[in-house]
């Protein structure tokens, strides 16, 4: 047994020069880099294109003026900005509590081995992959028609809430799972109930992760146009929403509307609005990253 493990008898015979395949290694490295480059390059071209095209209209008119069909030089996207804020506000209002509670149930209360929990888990993953237009049809049938909420801010908020719910549940579960088990045990060992443990220990420790996931989910909702087109977001609207039952438009809808206009001025306006939407999305993602970095794992 030990005989096979004796060191080489003659130290001079040791050869430490590499005998790998440097060409294959290098080629592979370049293939990897190229793949990365393709993705980044397309994104950069898109950004540069809309920024250059929309540059003449990237001024305060964009966010202080209402849309106008007759005078494109006076048109702005104020109603779309406020519409987006209203819709996203309601999306968050519905999606966050339901999403957080569902995730807490699945992660902290349900037995991981139970058939029900596994069934729900698989289906949440599936729901996250359902095309958003399907949610639009669902929202139209249930919220707009059956519940007679009509083509309003609240219908849009409810539908987008359904759309982002799976994402929020998955992100929240991951955040909860990252909280070490011994924090829960420490709390339970002091005679705390499961709810007290969840409320005072697990949730506060998971909030950074929950916030990050939530912001990313909401930024997805902000960019959605398809379900709202079905739900009848008004394509031309010259007033800000006044409440949950008000008509509305959002930034993606406004962009869609302007790109259909034949006049060049509207194309420019659409590009400028795309830049505005991208800035909002990037800002939200930056906040998410900031939260994540500020609250590095302390355990």
């Amino acid at each position, binding site marked *: 047994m030990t005989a096979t493990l004796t060191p080489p008898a003659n130290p001079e015979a040791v050869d430490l020069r590499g005998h790998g395949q440097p060409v294959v290694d290098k080629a592979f490295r370049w293939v990897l880099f190229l793949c990365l480059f393709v993705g980044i390059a397309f994104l950069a071209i898109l950004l540069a294109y809309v920024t250059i095209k929309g540059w003449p209209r990237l001024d305060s008119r964009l966010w202080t003026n209402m849309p106008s069909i007759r005078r494109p030089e006076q048109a702005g996207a104020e109603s779309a900005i406020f519409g987006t804020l209203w819709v996203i506000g309601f999306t968050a209002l519905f999606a966050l509590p339901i999403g957080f509670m569902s995730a807490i149930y699945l992660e902290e209360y349900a*037995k*991981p*081995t139970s058939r029900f929990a596994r069934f729900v888990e698989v289906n949440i993953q599936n729901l996250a992959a359902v095309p958003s237009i399907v949610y639009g049809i669902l929202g139209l049938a249930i919220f707009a028609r059956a519940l007679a909420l009509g083509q309003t801010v609240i219908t849009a908020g409810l539908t987008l809430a359904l759309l982002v719910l799976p994402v929020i549940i998955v992100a929240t579960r991951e955040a909860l799972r990252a909280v*070490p088990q*011994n*924090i*829960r*045990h*420490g*709390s*339970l*060992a*002091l*005679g*705390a*109930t499961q709810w*007290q443990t969840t409320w*005072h*220990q697990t949730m*506060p*420790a998971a909030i950074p992760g929950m916030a990050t996931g939530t912001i990313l989910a909401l930024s997805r909702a902000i960019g959605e146009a398809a379900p709202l087109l079905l739900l009848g977001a008004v394509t031309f609207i010259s007033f800000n929403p006044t409440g949950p039952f008000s008509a509305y438009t959002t930034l993606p809808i406004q962009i869609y509307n302007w790109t259909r206009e034949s006049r060049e001025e509207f194309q420019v306006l659409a590009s400028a609005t795309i830049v505005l939407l991208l800035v909002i999305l990037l800002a939200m993602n930056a906040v998410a990253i900031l939260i994540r970095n500020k609250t590095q794992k*302390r*355990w």
Partner: protein
Amino acid sequence: MSEIHDPNAPQATSDLANTGRMDVSAVLGEERGTPLDDAIPQVVFDLNNVRVFYGDFQAVRDVTMQIGRHEITAFIGPSGCGKSTLLRSFNRMNDLIPGARVEGLLAYHGYNIYAPDVDPIEVRRRIGMVFQKPNVFPKSIYENVAYGPKVNGMKVNMDDLVEECLTRAALWDEVKDDLKKSAYALSGGQQQRLVIARCIAVKPEVILMDEPCASLDPIATAKIEDLMKQLAADYTIVIVTHNMQQAARVSDRTAFFTADVDAEGVRHGRLVEYGPTRRIFTSPKDPRTEDYISGRFG
């Protein structure tokens, strides 16, 4: 400052500390007058054929023993002998592991803690636990101590209670100016003493310690051992340890566990020998105990 647990209990002094000495026979806790008799004067836990299972796997075989009030009982033995598993069944922490189940009778002051009408929350409030890794909460030092009394709805002057618990845990002088600081800023040894302070804040009768010094350096370990001896005046302590010298230094009674390998190669923990620490370490009755304490296996 009011007395936290028993107003008439004599205050242990720190000169009782006799740590650092590694000679087993010299550190057998002479000062506390450790028992020599097998009979236990006041019984807190009475175990009768206790068996612990994880699903179909039997982790602990029939254990019959008693734990004495205001004594330090040490569980020693090689890894996988079921000593931690048994300890965690004392305050129903095993409930948290899916499939874990306890059979036999595990009585706390004559009350079967696995009876159907028992609320594990009530059990855990009376029987506290200190874990292997100091699991302080990601909160301030103050909030760590105040958490237990708060969730148990204790009506107390919280500032006084926090000071008292930190003093009992020999931590007050080190942290009194930093109570609002995060508990994560403390060293490992300080964190473990904070966990002990947090534990006594809910006024338990028993403190279970699951290898409390496993992640600490020798100096921090010595401080925790001092602390245990002082706390034994007011609390019943059961400690699981891998460190035989530690068991010899701090405990009144020692239980030696080992793992039997059955015909299918599955390991089951069992209690081999239990008695006054002094006897276990000087004249063990079972040859397996002797082999273990003399370092021949485990």
